[in-house]
């Protein structure tokens, strides 16, 4: 590993106390009556900037435009394109917990769906708004989609859209990052979709199988 990557690991793993909960409210209260200083020429600038955006949109080469479009949110997952990525991923982690589905429902606050044809999962764990389950080599996570994303997936190749499910297939290994920027692990190819306000991540199988399992998930 390069020195710079080691330094990044130091930064990522540095524990910083959580942001003061009252921060946003305090800031908004303090700025509520303050005018934002505005200059007349800002209007002209805004007009020119708008025009430039329109012109840029017209001349951008299609691949560039595709990249711009693919910074997208899929429920609780933020897909973020990056230049390079890992070439392999470790095996899909199995879920160690052994909750019953009833216990998981109670903890998560919603009834988890599962791919019917896989039968009973070998591992189930849950926390508020989140359930993970696994079968041999297959891992399914489902979580309530919040205002802010839970995961950021740093992918570096095309996302494949699966219209039938309104799902996205991340076809290469990629960094799975928590919304607080902590790298969780390298994830393998994954299918992500949203159903009834719940975001699903299915990992461990190829695309065709993932689509098949996702279709049978209820």
């Amino acid at each position: 590993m390069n020195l710079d990557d080691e330094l990044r690991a130091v930064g990522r793993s540095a524990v910083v106390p959580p942001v003061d909960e009252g921060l946003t409210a305090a800031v908004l209260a303090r700025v509520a009556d303050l005018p934002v200083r505005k200059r007349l020429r800002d209007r002209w600038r805004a007009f020119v900037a708008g025009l430039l955006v329109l012109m840029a949109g017209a001349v951008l080469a299609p691949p560039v435009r595709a990249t711009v479009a693919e910074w997208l949110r899929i429920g609780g997952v933020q897909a973020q394109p990056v230049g390079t990525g890992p070439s392999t991923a470790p095996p899909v982690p199995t879920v160690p917990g052994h909750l019953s589905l009833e216990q998981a429902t109670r903890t998560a606050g919603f009834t988890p769906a599962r791919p019917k044809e896989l039968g009973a999962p070998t591992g189930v764990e849950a926390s508020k708004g989140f359930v993970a389950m696994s079968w041999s080599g297959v891992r399914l996570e489902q979580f309530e989609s919040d205002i802010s994303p839970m995961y950021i997936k740093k992918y570096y190749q095309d996302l494949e859209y699966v219209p039938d499910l309104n799902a996205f297939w991340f076809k290469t290994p990629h960094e799975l990052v928590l919304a607080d920027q902590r790298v969780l692990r390298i994830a393998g190819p994954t299918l992500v979709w949203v159903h009834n306000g719940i975001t699903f991540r299915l990992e461990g199988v190829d695309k065709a199988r993932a689509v098949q399992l996702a279709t049978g998930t209820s």
Partner: protein
Amino acid sequence: MLARVRGGESAAYGELVNRHALVAKRTAVFLGAGADADDVVQEAFVKAYKALGTFRDGAAFRPWLLRIVANETRNVVRARGRRARREELAAPLDVVLDPAEEAVSLERRKELLAAVRELPEPMRLVVTCRYLLDLDEQETAVVLGWPRGTVKSRLHRALGRLRDALPDKEVQR
């Protein structure tokens, strides 16, 4: 978003605060704000709001905000220097490392952190922004208010020093 805020929708600013609060706090702590980090962050967001009129359209908000955080942190650290009980004060990079990070051993990370702390200030700042906070070169230049070339050369020298301070480890693994 910025357009909405500038258009007088101050509530929309809340979204910007939420989005950038974490990196603002990390920056303040890494630069030595210690127990004052929350105050620094709050002050920086208020100052940023007041200065939105000078924010250049199309520029990135994050580095611009972090520059304000960095300046605010410097003010706090300076003000403290005038107080008496120095030994209780937070130092830059006064952080705990999470043992769970798997990519690099805890021992190695502690060595690295200690070596970065020992760097002369400009080098420590550039390593903190570019690597510990993982900003890109352009963002680092904005946050520190240096030309890009300066960022590049100081970074280069800082890495050289770190390599000297940490002999051979890179080669061994």
